[in-house]
């Protein structure tokens, strides 16, 4: 499935924010652009570099989005989704 990602902020090299991951696609976390409690919280939810994530669903206003992370479905808001950098799989 080839799908052009139109809202990408970082277009080239397959790296992007998790928030822009199209529904049905998977990606691997490369880094977290956040600090302190938010960072800790994300890591506790299983968001560490190397974690595979699949975008499952999108709410009507595209915020929040549901992701499958290490066996659990977790919804993330745009602000959180834009702090997580991922690399697309299977390009």
């Amino acid at each position, binding site marked *: 499935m080839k799908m052009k990602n139109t809202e990408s902020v970082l277009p080239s090299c397959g790296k992007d924010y998790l928030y822009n991951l199209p529904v049905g696609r998977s990606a691997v976390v490369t880094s977290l652009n956040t600090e302190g*409690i938010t960072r*800790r*919280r994300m890591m*506790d*939810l*299983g968001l560490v570099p190397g974690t595979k994530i699949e975008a499952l669903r999108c709410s009507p206003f595209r915020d929040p989005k549901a992701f499958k*992370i*290490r*066996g*659990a479905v977790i919804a993330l808001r745009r602000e959180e989704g834009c702090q997580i950098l991922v690399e697309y799989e299977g390009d």
Partner: protein
Amino acid sequence: MGLIYRFWGNSAAGGSVKKVIQQKTSYTIALAGNPNTGKSTIFNALTGLNQHTGNWPGKTVLRAEGSYNYEGIAFNLVDLPGTYSLLANSVEEQVARDYLCFGKPDTTVVVADATCLERNLNLVLQVLEITSKAVVCVNLVDEAKRKKIEIDAEFLAAELGVPVVFTAAREGRGLEQLLSAITAVSTGSIINTPYAVKYEKEIEDAVTKIEPQIRKLVGKEYNSRWLALRFLDKDQVVIDAVQKWVTGRVPLNIKTGGAVLA
């Protein structure tokens, strides 16, 4: 606190000294685990109480307490709200964390969900970092079996260095093994050697630097390595708690923590 509590407990019992001697002491067992892994179900199964259970995370907000007897020993069971981490910050998570960190239960049972064990191991390792007196209870094995998930209990126990018990609490399976594991760890007939997370060199160096100072401050009452790590984290809740416990020289440590981090 455990010792003081037991001391008062014994003397308060007064009339029934014989009974107390026979039972030795009562142990406090904490039930910790990720949200929605069946802690309350296990709590009910062991205590015969009827704590509200339900299939959604965040149902237990405050801790509930109950007791049971096993092989003539009295156990106090504390059901804690589910938490993904001991370092996070919502109110329920704080209840769980405060209890585990400062309530000093005799044994901590970490309830893990067999259907997604991996994400539960984060909390398991965090608990093992605080206390060696822990039992890992892999619950919902019936559901995992339905999903065709197989877990190697022996390997897991060997890796973690603590007893691992499989349960299906809803059907009452594995509870007997859980009870005997809890008893063995509480009474000290099993001495655990829990897996210790090793951090990067800079962090380990910093810990080696400040841990002796912290140990001087709090003695053996609290786990100084764990406190050292929290100080490096600049974890305000832990720092405040320690500050309350020993007033005075703590700000020096915080400065050390911050400086080493930077």
